[in-house]
């Protein structure tokens, strides 16, 4: 009868010890993937597309500044098909975008978008390997089959365009202000030239940064391995320790170049073209002698899309020559439809004054329609087989940007 009752504290302690462990273990983050799925089951396409119908609307997620703000192409698409397009510029960076939609896709829920434009980066592999991308039904993409450049149908990150077709490509090279540098910039070695100490801009994105380190060290990003990455990191560390690099930038490098913060910087082709047109600046963009990189932003359909049929119709619409042409005229990135060049020239002939000059410039620009010689100097990104490899890669280059 006088047995000591279990105090409240003791009860909590006893219960807590076992419960806490179980509870902690229960709070996991669900993944979705298995090993790399470079190819899909042969019936995957039929399985996904059977029973799907046109619904009259598409929710489209894209990057900022990737379409004329008046969206002439989308208006034309609606007129032609009756499909309403809800276009949103919600993607700013690949990593955060993946982190944002991953929980919903993992749970099999809609992310609110039927179409998203994603880069051939590390995250493209994460999307694909997690099974988050719908396999494309190529019978619904006749214009792509007819008009896409062969180069864009054999890309290493998605051979045979199983999950993606390009929206636009771009080149990572060097942009510079000739007034400040006082001489022409031609090679990657210029980014290591002590004459420009503290005036060099590099990208904070580990893949972009690594690519330049690899190329500067005479290595090819596409078939590089861990030893190469270490060499590249050492090369980049040397540049940093010498005080060459003013900062590691995201998209804000354009602003930094405009304000004289940097004189020469890693840059994306279309940005510099657009900056010169809109701000009247006279910056130069070059593909370095040692090589530059080419990347592709791709149309993809998330597996949970509510309106995949409408989405794939819109994808194919952008492969009609006229639409590809007007898009390239505005965004000035590499166009995956070679026939668009002739179309832009035709548009230029019909235009007059300033428009004519601009259109001619776009049609002749090696940044929009690179020649074979340009392509020969352009490299693809580092490829990863496993998630560990990715993490390892990140941990090698991270100490350079985060220190």
């Amino acid at each position, binding site marked *: 009868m006088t047995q000591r009752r279990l105090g409240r504290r003791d009860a909590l302690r006893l219960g807590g010890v076992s419960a806490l462990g179980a509870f*902690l*273990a*229960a*709070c996991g983050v669900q993944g979705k993937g298995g090993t790399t799925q470079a190819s899909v089951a042969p019936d995957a396409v039929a399985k996904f597309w059977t029973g799907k119908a046109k619904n009259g609307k598409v929710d489209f997620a894209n990057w900022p500044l990737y379409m004329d703000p008046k969206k002439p192409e989308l208006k034309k698409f609606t007129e032609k098909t009756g499909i309403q397009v809800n276009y949103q510029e919600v993607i700013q960076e690949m990593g955060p975008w993946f982190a944002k939609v*991953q929980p919903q896709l993992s749970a099999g829920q809609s992310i609110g978008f039927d179409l998203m434009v994603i880069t051939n980066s590390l995250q493209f592999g994460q999307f694909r390997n997690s099974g988050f991308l719908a396999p494309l039904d190529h019978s619904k993409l006749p214009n792509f089959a007819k008009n896409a450049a062969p180069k864009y149908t054999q890309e290493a990150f998605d051979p045979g365009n199983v999950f993606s077709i390009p929206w636009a490509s771009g080149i990572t090279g060097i942009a510079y202000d000739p007034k400040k540098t006082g001489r022409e910039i031609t090679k990657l070695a210029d980014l290591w030239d002590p004459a420009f100490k503290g005036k060099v801009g590099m990208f904070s994105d580990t893949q972009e940064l690594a690519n330049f380190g690899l190329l500067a060290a005479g290595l090819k990003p596409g078939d590089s391995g861990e030893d190469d990455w270490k060499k590249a990191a050492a090369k980049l560390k040397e540049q940093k320790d010498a005080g060459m690099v003013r900062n590691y930038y995201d998209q804000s490098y354009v602003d930094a170049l405009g304000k004289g*913060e940097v004189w020469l910087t890693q840059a994306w082709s279309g940005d510099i073209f657009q900056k010169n047109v809109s701000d009247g600046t006279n910056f130069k963009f070059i593909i370095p002698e040692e090589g530059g990189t080419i990347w592709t932003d791709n149309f993809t359909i998330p597996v949970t899309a509510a309106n995949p049929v409408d989405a794939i119709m819109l994808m194919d619409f952008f492969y009609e020559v006229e639409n590809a042409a007007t898009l390239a005229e505005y965004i000035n990135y590499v166009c995956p439809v070679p026939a668009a060049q002739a179309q832009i020239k035709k548009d230029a002939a019909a235009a007059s004054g300033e428009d004519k000059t601009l259109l001619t410039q776009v049609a002749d620009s090696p940044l929009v329609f690179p020649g074979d010689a340009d392509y020969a100097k352009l490299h693809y990104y580092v490829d990863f087989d496993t998630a560990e490899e990715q993490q390892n890669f*990140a941990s090698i280059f991270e100490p350079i940007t*985060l*220190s």
Partner: protein
Amino acid sequence: MNRVKRTLAPYLLVLPGGLWLLLFFVVPMVTMFSLSLQQGDIVNGYVFTGHWQTYVDAISNYQTQLIRSLVYGLITTVALVVMSFPVAYWIAFYGGKRKSTYLFLILLPFFVSFVLRTISWRQILTDDGMLLHPLKEAGLLSPGFHILGTSYAVIFGLIYNFLPFMVLPIYVALERIDPRVVEAARDLYAKPLTVFRKVVFPLALPGVFAGVLMTFVPASSDYVNSGVLGSSSTTMIGQVVQAQALANSNYPMASALSFFLMAVLLTGVFIYARVLGTEDVMNAAAR
């Protein structure tokens, strides 16, 4: 029946607050703590393995950024106390009828987004911007001189962005001081400085304490200012957490860093409370 009611009553009264605490504090904290001990990757999912090594890695890999964050936070907080006290003092004792207008003016810039305000400073402080360009043209500064990308720019940004969080609590504490107490001190022949030292300042301490709490913690873990105004040599721990969580999807590392930072900050705050002799930390902050 009555006895049941009496035993249950306190629990029922605690229920709303308790639920709130459970939902918004305990659940996220436990989830984050659990994540910090998991292993895996984002594609295959993370599994709880009780992997404490992440904490060791977090501290050994990012000690520079951790220390830098605390130092920046400390400098910011000290500068804020020094700057805010006179402002709050003036408004409380000489503000007259316009007191609320002055307070409103202090708050006014904060109706604009935090990030936008910081980016605006970037435009002002930039190398060829409106501040440095004329000085360079006039030959007063060397062409290579810059503010952006230095520790100064980051600390300046932190001070600017957290100013009201220091001014307001100090103002509230000062405002509450009974003028008759000050009068009494003067009647007893205390010199103005002695009045301040012996009467006004001790009575304002809870406000200073609250201000320090409200600025030191967010300033140390901020990632916007160092990202926008700094460079790769001013990286703060908040940026590392952001990069680990969003760019690398390395959730265990991000959680471990956040948890460790929280532990360090809490320890710091409690030591500070001890030194100040404030017995109940949260009570002093809420006063």
